[in-house]
């Protein structure tokens, strides 16, 4: 974990409301592990003081990138920033994904919307290739499909309106793959990032199929380093459950540890 002033190398529209920002952060970039995040102070925001957390998308040399969607005043202001401007970044933060080992479980990645960005480093650094299931509302919500294909992953896309890939929810092709009688001999592990209802559905599928799953939880966050206790989720302990921090114990949790009944 380091705090650094990062220069914007580029900040360009990807599709629709999605942008890609590349940040020059030579001390931070080499430390980043798959599933970790960066806590960014969007300098032009005047009366909105808090940092914004973003999953780290790609790492290249001295720089790392973020793939974000404009959803509010923080991301709107970020999307208007230009190359050469500076941002304060605290990163890398959090406990990320377990990178699959060569010859081990076959990784099945499940992504909803910009959750896809959080999975790229995992796919890239995993010696064991697998399948990426990506879902979104419409075509523009399916991100970086080609980049996953370019590193040897099979991508199965679903859209709710059928404008790209299979029509429906991302969990449909995932279930089909797991239930496929031919895949019974296969040893799967699920990795997921996306909206909470999707993560909950993935946790249920994993439990029913007795397949391990790691979920990257997307919670409202404030300090990002474990002190404010904003981003907590209920996690099983020996004799019950306790609130644990998405920014510190997470964002990646073992699906079996999450107490869904106690979530809002």
């Amino acid at each position: 974990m380091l705090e650094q002033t990062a220069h914007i190398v580029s900040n360009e529209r990807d599709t629709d409301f999605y942008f890609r920002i590349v940040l020059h952060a030579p001390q931070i970039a080499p430390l980043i592990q798959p599933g970790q995040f960066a806590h960014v102070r969007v300098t032009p925001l005047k009366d909105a003081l808090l940092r914004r957390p973003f999953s780290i998308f790609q790492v290249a040399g001295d720089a790392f990138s973020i793939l974000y969607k404009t959803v509010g005043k923080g991301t709107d202001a970020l999307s208007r920033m230009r190359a050469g401007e500076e941002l304060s970044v605290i990163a890398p933060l959090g406990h990320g994904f377990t990178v699959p080992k060569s010859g081990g479980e076959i990784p099945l990645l499940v992504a909803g919307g910009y959750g896809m960005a959080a999975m790229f480093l995992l796919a890239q650094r995993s010696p064991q290739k697998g399948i990426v299931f990506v879902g979104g509302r419409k075509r523009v919500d399916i991100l970086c499909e080609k980049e996953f294909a370019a590193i040897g992953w099979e991508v199965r896309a679903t859209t709710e309106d059928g404008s790209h890939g299979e029509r429906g929810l991302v969990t449909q092709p995932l279930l089909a793959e797991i239930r496929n009688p031919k895949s019974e001999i296969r040893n799967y592990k699920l990795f997921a990032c996306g909206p909470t209802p999707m993560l909950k559905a993935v946790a249920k599928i994993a439990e029913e199929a007795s397949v391990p799953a790691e979920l990257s939880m997307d919670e409202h966050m404030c300090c990002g380093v474990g002190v404010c206790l904003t981003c907590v989720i209920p996690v099983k302990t020996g004799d019950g459950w306790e609130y644990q921090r998405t920014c510190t114990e997470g964002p990646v949790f073992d699906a079996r540890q999450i107490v869904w009944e106690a979530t809002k």
Partner: protein
Amino acid sequence: MNLSVKIGKLTMQNPVTVASGTFGYGAEYSRLIDLNLLGAVTVKGIRLNPVRGNTTPRTAEVASGMLNAIGLQGPGVDGFIKKYWPFLKSLKVPTIINIWGTTVEEYAEVARRFDALGGVGALELNVSCPNIKEGGAQFGTDLKLLAQVVAACRKATRLPLITKMSPNVVSIAPFARAAEDAGSDALAITNSYPAMAIDIETRKPKLANVTGGLTGPAIKPIAVKLVWDAARAVKIPIIGMGGIQNADDAIEFLMAGATAVAVGTANFYEPQTPLQVIAGIREFMEREKIRDIRELTGSVQTKK
């Protein structure tokens, strides 16, 4: 140049600490700043037993500040001592432990436990948290209960006692005097202001707790006034806090009557703030040729 101040028997090498609840138990920020440069580390509120805390969402950003209703989640006295005390004890700067309870007896018991621990810098009595049903602000907004809780803790420990005052009173002066008369060595002014924010799309409050406490730069001028009011009512030192973002803000609190200051919400968005405040105070003193930080306390010129 002297930057050191005294809070009861406690000596701080400079007048800057952090506000309870914005700095965890110290260790979390030790990777981003050198804690040994602070005047003291103040930890999140601890009661006797572990506390699970409120449901989420627990915080919401608002203009120039934020609301929180964490519900004092914490490990309890034993959990704190086991998990966090070894690190805090190893620091060169003192630790101020913020304590609370749901009864006068519990406050006193927690005070006794930390008295027995040895090596604690001071205890801060949290009688002002707005986000819990029992305890907290219930004690800080009732003159009789406030006096009882401070007196009971005074009997339980010889450690310096700092009473963290609620801003949610008509006039702070009688409360400040009640804490002083009951044996408090210092006052911390102030805690968060009861507040609310609503999501107009869902028509639901932005916090699961419905209401919470407002902190950040939004409250600074109100907090400065509270310090000024209290400083004229008591002789004991005041630790001023509420929206401090830089040295200028801190100096305002000192001029209003504070002996020391605490950086709170700013830690969440700029962890370097406490160190920037210390550096800025030093620069101000050099520029203004002030030899001793104590010259600044209460130095506001209100006469024409």
